[in-house]
């Protein structure tokens, strides 16, 4: 074993060697058992270090608000907007959050499997379900507003004065290409009963990325958590695709990531076909739907609860 090779071995184990140095080690290893053993040791060490280091961190604290407040910029940090807005309503919303949490757990064990069974059929179906869910939420909320005042009605009352989350924070995935589609057409296709206000207050975005779907969904989990959202127990990473639902007060974000291969397994009716056609092989389709309501309102669209009946 030459000194040069010996010095390069740890970087070969770390998979950071490039070009000729990488080739040199590759060739050398074929006929040097001593170096092969040395490499195994470095790899064991690498594994231990990765476990040791990564175990230190499982959560990331929110980015401090004062970091950007010292600048001359007049624009408030996007994350802070949500936090500040939320803090004003924290007390009033505490009880409601607990309610939502309880309902979410129930949904995660009951309604969610049905919902995700539908998700497995492909992103088109998913979007339809999502939009129908919004429809259910909106119609349900309207009915509640007209009734005496159950806890959820407090959240509904805030809808008119509060801008939905999607208008305040950027949920775009880094490097993703936004797909071209007629949002109104899609919304109309799945939400015939949407009022103009409901159309305006729910946001749908669809893009495509070259990243693996698990990487994308991990990014969104981190992003939403850092923004103060609670991820429900409805995390679903199966059937080669992934979805999450996150809540913060009465704001809900439903996000899904579907690889090209999965998209190809279902037929896509208009206007979704134009959207799906834009996803290239090796790409994943990313969508998110944000709205104001409660995730517990998400039910199987095949059996919608009458809007006049309180669901909880």
């Amino acid at each position, binding site marked *: 074993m030459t000194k040069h090779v*010996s010095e390069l071995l740890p970087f070969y184990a770390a998979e*950071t*060697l490039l070009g000729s140095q990488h080739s040199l080690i590759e060739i050398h290893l074929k006929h040097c058992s001593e170096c092969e053993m040395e490499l195994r040791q470095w790899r064991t060490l690498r594994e231990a270090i*990765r476990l*040791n280091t990564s175990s230190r*961190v499982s959560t990331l604290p929110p980015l401090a608000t004062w970091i950007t407040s010292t600048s001359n910029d007049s624009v408030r940090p996007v*994350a802070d907007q949500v936090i500040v807005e939320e803090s004003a309503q924290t007390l009033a919303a505490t009880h409601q959050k607990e309610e939502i949490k309880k309902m979410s757990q129930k949904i995660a064990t009951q309604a969610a499997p049905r919902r995700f069974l539908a998700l497995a059929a492909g992103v088109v179906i998913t979007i339809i379900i999502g939009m129908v869910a919004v429809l259910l939420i909106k119609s349900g909320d309207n009915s509640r507003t007209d009734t005496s005042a159950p806890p959820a009605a407090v959240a509904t009352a805030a809808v008119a004065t509060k801008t939905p989350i999607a208008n305040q924070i950027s949920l775009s995935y*880094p490097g993703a290409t936004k797909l071209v589609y007629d949002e109104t057409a899609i919304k109309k296709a799945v939400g015939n009963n949407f009022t103009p206000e409901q159309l305006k207050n729910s946001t749908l975005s669809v893009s495509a990325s070259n990243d693996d779907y698990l990487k994308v969904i991990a990014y969104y989990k981190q992003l939403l958590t850092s923004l103060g959202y609670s991820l429900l127990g409805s995390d679903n990473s199966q059937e080669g695709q992934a979805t999450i639902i996150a809540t913060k007060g009465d704001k809900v974000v439903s996000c899904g990531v579907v690889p090209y291969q999965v998209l190809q397994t279902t037929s896509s009716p208009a206007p979704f076909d134009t959207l799906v056609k834009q996803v290239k092989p090796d790409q994943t389709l990313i969508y998110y739907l944000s709205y104001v309501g409660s995730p517990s309102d998400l039910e199987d669209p095949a059996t919608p609860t009458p809007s006049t009946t309180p669901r909880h």
Partner: protein
Amino acid sequence: MTKQPDTAFDNDEIVLVKAMAAGDHAALHTLYLRYGPSLLAYLIGQLQNRSLAEEILQDVMMAAWKGAVSFRGDSKVYTWLLVIARNRAITARKRLSDYKYHPLTLDAIDTMQGHDTLEAGVERRDEQQALRQALQKLPVEQRETLELIFYHDLSAAETAAVLQVASGTVKSRLHRAKTALRKLLEGKLND
């Protein structure tokens, strides 16, 4: 947690820093989400104190926010952030007059659910456990070097740049660390 940045992000991350320099808060936030976990892991390793590390991480992000204008793209963005983190950690350690090495406190080690299932068996798990304990006994600079190379995936030159030493020093430190670990595992060193 979050893996080290890959090359696919190289152009994207420079765009992010430029956006930060232009006052784009969302870009800072994206950078934080991308590299915050790895930087935090590094800082906890250096400071042996989770809450202090989280505090320093915020300082690092503020330095990045303010320094984005002067970032010239001579290095990877992540390497730049690591240099800032390291300098902040050194300053923080100097402030702690009673600072001395001690093992990670329990609150600094999050649960590792799932990791055991990745390992082949009890024996292997015990070996890994012994190795991890030995790692904690290494001198700080040796453990730091190992982590920069094997967790943060820095090249020899990048590691040297972060540590502000020559590349040769990095390589010799690596091999010294390995020798020390072997002795620790063989029980030839009592502490």
